[in-house]
């Protein structure tokens, strides 16, 4: 009996620009706090979807570099939660988030799925852009606090007379 060769499933065609856009929103979703999702939760769940991979807690091994830019070494683990959802139209959404928050992982995966659909522009303007702005504001606040502790050296010149 000869097996009929099965054609390989068509892999997704890589589009670097699209990957970068997706990389951006996935990063924004990862940095969001649990309560950032509160006012979007109903809208995110308002769709038929199934959990391809139910929210799962595990670890990622954090690597550093010797001297900051040399060869890699293992620093330790960090807790991570991941989730995969599939919407009724077949789009899949992924999430990998630092920490152990299954609800947040499911919402982030749903957001990733929605962002790949026809409503992308709406999700960008209603969810991702405000989150990104809040994150930028938080960074700016932290930076300003640190800047307040910058040492302003002045040198005392000893007079000759």
């Amino acid at each position, binding site marked *: 009996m000869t097996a009929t060769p099965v054609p390989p499933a068509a892999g997704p065609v890589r589009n670097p620009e699209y990957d970068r856009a997706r990389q951006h929103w996935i990063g924004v979703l990862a940095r969001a706090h649990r309560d950032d999702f509160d006012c979007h939760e109903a809208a995110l769940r308002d769709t038929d979807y199934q959990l391809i991979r139910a929210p799962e807690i595990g670890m990622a091994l*954090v690597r550093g*570099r010797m001297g*900051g830019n040399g060869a*890699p070494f293992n620093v330790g683990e960090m807790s991570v939660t991941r989730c995969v959802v599939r919407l009724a139209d077949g789009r899949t959404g992924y999430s*990998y988030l630092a920490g152990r928050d299954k609800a947040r992982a499911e919402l982030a995966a749903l957001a990733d799925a929605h962002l790949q659909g026809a409503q992308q522009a709406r999700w960008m303007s209603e969810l991702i852009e405000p989150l990104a702005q809040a994150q930028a504001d938080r960074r700016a606040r932290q930076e300003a606090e640190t800047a307040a502790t910058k040492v302003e050296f002045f040198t005392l010149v000893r007079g000759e007379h």
Partner: protein
Amino acid sequence: MYVAVKGGERAIDNAHRLLAKKRRGDTAVAELGVEQIRQQLPLAVARVMSEGSLYDEQLAALAIKQAAGDLVEAIFLLRAYRTTLPRFCASLPIDTSRMLLSRRLSATFKDVPGGQLLGPTFDYTHRLLDFSLLAEGDYPGPDVHGHAQLEPCPHVLGLLAKEGLIKEETDLGEAADDITRTPLEYPASRAQRLQALARGDEGFLLALGYSSQRGYGRNHPFAGEIRIGEVDVWLEPEELGFPIAIGAIEITECEMVNQFVGSTAEPAQFTRGYGLAFGHAERKAMAMALVDRSLRAEEYGEEIQSPAQQQEFVLAHCDNVEAAGFVSHLKLPHYVDFQSELELIRKLRKPSTEQAQ
């Protein structure tokens, strides 16, 4: 030799209940919440995460509460929990040049690009007990100019490297050995040593680093740079095919500039020691950098004379979970062992007693 002895079950149950009662303390005082520990004892949380080898602030705070503040016990609890979780993957190496800095110092150059950023520090405090903390207070922080920005803060040692004055770090693309999957064998690679030191006991590393400063394996260090801040962690999940940020962690990095080496073939260059720890953990990162440099003695053809230079001594003893476990096991019943020792010593003493008569 251990012989099973029964009968302790009820005593053990009651001892654990008593421990829980002791941990709770006076019930007239409000119970300590895990979130309070996480928010208000962040440096204890950092130590437990580093040495527990798991970055999870909430779990570290829980471990501290459960251990009634015994940090080595808390580290043990976190390590034990860690073994129950699957590892999804390894991260891409974190890029510490892109940290959101909360502190940055160089003891080698006053006017370093980006400047000296003190951040929240115990330095320059007078170490006088602050009795105002006995009462509740408000701590609004310094006045901040809303638009103040940090200038770019490149790695300080990079400036020396540009001039060729310090050994460059190189990445030959080799996979980092993982001491949690493959047991250590000696001599260990620098990647293995750094992993062991990153989870090593702060007190032990501090003492070793101090010993190297006092002359036991001199390596003449300067704190080239200390950086504390948040850094994004990136993974590259297979199913996505491109790297993604999963959130930020706080880390402390220390780069030491050390004694130079050179030969007739190579001009003199400074050498490096590197420390990296989870959270705000300056003393740990500095001690680690000192010991990292000491352990590079062989690489630089230095005579190995002192404990801090001996990798088997350092690496085999720096883990406080292993060390505490082996010391603690002395508490377990050794009744039979001791009986045989007792018999032996009695036998040894017998002839001399008879002679004396």
